[in-house]
């Protein structure tokens, strides 16, 4: 098989690993079985993407998102996958929100310690910081 063909499929090493983890310890998997599984998993991906993409197209949306994938899984009969991935998606979104909130707190701390602009000590409020960064209004900075 040409390398280019392999690039268009899920990596056989990852596929083989997932298979191995689900089977009993002494079970073996032939190379051809892994290749077939690799092809099937790749086809699964394309198949579900096609369904999700059709939905987006009908709804005049350009971006296929996580909810579309979950919907497509359900529409194609993979209900148990749909339920699990919906839960997974919610956990992922929560984790992203927590990460974004943590980053915002970190940024605020950085602004206060940033020595590039002379922020008057008595005016170290969040409002002042916001205005200095947002508008670059030098009149505030040079004010005694």
């Amino acid at each position, binding site marked *: 098989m040409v390398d280019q063909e392999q*690039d*268009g*499929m*899920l*990596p056989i090493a*990852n*596929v083989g*690993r*997932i*298979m191995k*983890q*689900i*089977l009993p310890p*002494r*079970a*073996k998997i*032939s190379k*051809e*079985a892994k*290749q*077939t*599984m690799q*092809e*099937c*998993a*790749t*086809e*699964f*991906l*394309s*198949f*579900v*993407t*096609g369904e999700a*993409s*059709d939905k*987006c*197209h009908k709804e005049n949306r*350009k*971006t*296929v*998102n*996580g909810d*579309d*994938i979950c919907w497509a899984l359900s529409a*194609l*009969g*993979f209900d*148990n*996958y749909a339920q*699990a*991935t919906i*839960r*997974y*998606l919610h*956990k*992922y*979104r929560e*984790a992203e929100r927590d*990460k974004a909130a943590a980053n915002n707190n970190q940024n605020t701390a950085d602004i206060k310690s940033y020595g590039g602009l002379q922020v008057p000590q008595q005016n170290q409020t969040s409002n002042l910081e916001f205005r200095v960064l947002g508008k670059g209004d030098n009149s505030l900075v040079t004010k005694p």
Partner: protein
Amino acid sequence: MRQPRRYSGLTMCGGISGRTGPHSLPLARIKKIMKNSGEDVKMISGEAPIVFSKACEMFIEELTRRSWMTTLEGKRRTVHKDDVASAVVATDIFDFLVSLVSGSCCSEDITPVEIETLEKS
């Protein structure tokens, strides 16, 4: 020692440990396959490949389990390609794979002797 990363806890609910990293399948490759699946697929959100890594993992697990059932019926311990094909044929929701697994096997319609006869005529 490799430390668990932020999302390794998410993979635990699928029964897969965080050993292979946060996701068991490479997101960039998943995205590439999604883009190749059709002309309509133009933009893909960041979370879509992540959702898919989970769904593909579950798909592989299910098909593997079903294939293993066939392997056991044959009193073997090595999963062969035909076991995977049998599992596909036996499962309604895997109908979309039937042509893929039957196409990868040798065609039984024409025997080698018949092919030679056709070539000579």
